[in-house]
């Protein structure tokens, strides 16, 4: 029990703040712990996951979606709630499935198989994106693209750097595993686009003439 407490205490200090300015040290510390996946998910990840949908809800309600045309696209509050809940569900699915897939890949690349570590790693990698989603407060697509692309590059850097350290494998092997995960993340991102479009066509979201 005391060992568990120590483990939990040691990761308390690292995930949310320290990983932002000292990510490599954080990865080193994480590689010495075995947190439980539920603790990471409920203690940290869920609070980060909630940020983008909340920012998006506030932004869209106040400023409308600004897609480049003269007039912003306004939607009813009901529609915005549905979109934000869907956004949260997609992000939660993305995080959990990525952690599970990462652990599934671990045996191929000889990596550590602690699901908690995978979950923590993915949380740290995704954290800058969750924080940068503050740009959703002003939902102009181009402003968001300008903010999110550099953040995404930083997150990819964290993924490539973090995997070998946290999962205790040589950097070259980590590069292969990170690239496989990037493949999955690209597919997940494009799935989100496809799913959104299907929902719009089905009548959930902006009013489309289809």
């Amino acid at each position: 029990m005391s060992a568990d407490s120590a483990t939990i205490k040691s990761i308390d200090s690292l995930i949310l703040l320290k990983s932002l300015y000292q990510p490599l040290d954080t990865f080193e510390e994480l590689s010495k712990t075995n947190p439980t996946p539920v603790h990471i998910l409920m203690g940290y990840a869920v609070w980060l996951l909630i940020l983008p949908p909340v920012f998006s809800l506030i932004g869209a309600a106040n400023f409308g979606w600004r897609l480049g045309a003269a007039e912003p696209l306004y939607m009813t509050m009901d529609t915005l709630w549905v979109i934000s809940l869907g956004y949260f569900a997609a992000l939660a699915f993305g995080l959990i499935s990525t952690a599970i897939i990462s652990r599934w890949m671990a045996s191929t690349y000889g990596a550590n198989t602690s699901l908690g570590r995978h979950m923590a790693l993915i949380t740290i990698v995704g954290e800058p994106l969750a924080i940068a989603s503050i740009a959703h407060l002003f939902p102009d697509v181009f402003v968001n693209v300008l903010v999110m692309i550099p953040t995404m590059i930083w997150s990819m850097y964290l993924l490539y750097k973090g995997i070998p350290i946290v999962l205790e494998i040589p950097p070259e092997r980590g590069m292969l595993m990170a690239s496989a995960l990037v493949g999955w993340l690209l597919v997940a991102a494009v799935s989100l686009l496809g799913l959104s479009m299907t929902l719009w066509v089905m009548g959930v979201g902006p009013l489309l003439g289809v």
Partner: protein
Amino acid sequence: MEATANSFYQDKVVIRLIQFSVIWAVAAMAVGVYISAELVWPGIDFGQFWLSFGRLRPLHTNGIIFGFGVSALMATAFYSVQRTSHVTLYAPRLAWFCCYAWQLIVLLGGLSLLAGWTSSKEYAELEWPFDIAIAIVWVSFGIVFFGTIAKRKIRPIYISNWFYGSLIIVIAMLHIVNNLAIPVTLDKSYSLYAGAQDAVVQWWYGHNAVGFLLTGGFLGMVYYFLPKHAGRPIWSYRLSVVAFWAFVYSYIWAGPHHLHYSAIPEWVQSLAMGMSLILLAPSWATMINGIMTVSTAWEKLRTDPALKFIVLSLAFYGLATFEGPMMSIRSVNVVSHFTDWTVGHVHSGALGWNAMITYGTFYFLVPRLVGRELHSTRLANMHFWMALAGTMLYIMSMWAAGVSQGLLWLSVDQLGELSFGFKDIMASMTPYYLMRLVAGLVFLGGTLLMAYNLFMTLKGQQPKRASIPAVDPAYGMS
């Protein structure tokens, strides 16, 4: 025993084709960058017809697909078919004819596009004299390739040769059928097909050119060069054979997904959508086979910059082959079609998959062909990061632009009237086009680094003479 000409593989033609391929890559990508700049500053065509977007765009696509892509495929097919058959090329002079005649077609064909000659069929714009010339060279390519297989000394036909073989046969079939036309003058002909039939035939061609040339041909490259790179056999040979036949069977049906909500019968659209979704299985089977093959060869990454390109190309192959079937779903297509998302999808395949796998193969092949180290590993590593950054930036900007366009021009107000005008929507796309221009410049910059690196590696070197090894009796022909 004295070595004869027949004791060594014919690699000079391979080197020459690689050189042409790199030249076309630089030229056609530069044209791509120029037309992307035209979308930001339309005035830079300076009122010249030959500099207009409408003429330069097919020059870009034809230059990349037929100049860069086919030259690379011919080079790698000639290289690998000799090694997997344990014989020299059949009809080597015909191979040289293919090499030079093909470059002449690309050069003159490109000039004819600038002059405004066009059949107006996408990716088949060249007019009938070029179509006949292409058919002749393509059949010659087939004679060299299949002739080499016919005289092989090793009984099994290795999987890469099945993919290269399907590329040659299917492209010949598609090219000839789609380009059947009645010539009127030297620079004008009329398609033998009319209306919706013409559209169906065109996209049967267009989509399967993507399938059998840009996918199947390059999979041939993967199946030969990836195990060579990794220094171990393909992870599952059985899976590669199953994936090949499933790929060949399902791809050929998918073309009409380019014609959703058009005048063709709805069941044809639905069938194409269904087959496109099925296509995901063989595509990903190959991706998994590639990833698993390379997964145990991680030590090679320490010394071999080329392997990184191949690893990333498999990730982008996975993305593009997932994105394509998804975009073929009618309820997604209704929003995504006619938007820049399609352009982004094509480039996730063309830059992330085709170019990356070719770059990785060239970095592997050129030093071996001349028996010396790559001129600069550092430049190759820089190229890798530039290629990755350029591709990602390209895809992201086109995703954002495409989704915005789809949403904006389908948006209606409470009365059911369109909310936004087409012109206004397009005028608002400038920031994305600027971002895409930067992406293109970064990617082109990386390609220029490779061109310099390969030039310095080849400079002053004669091709290394590679002798044909003895055949294991267990696999011999007799």
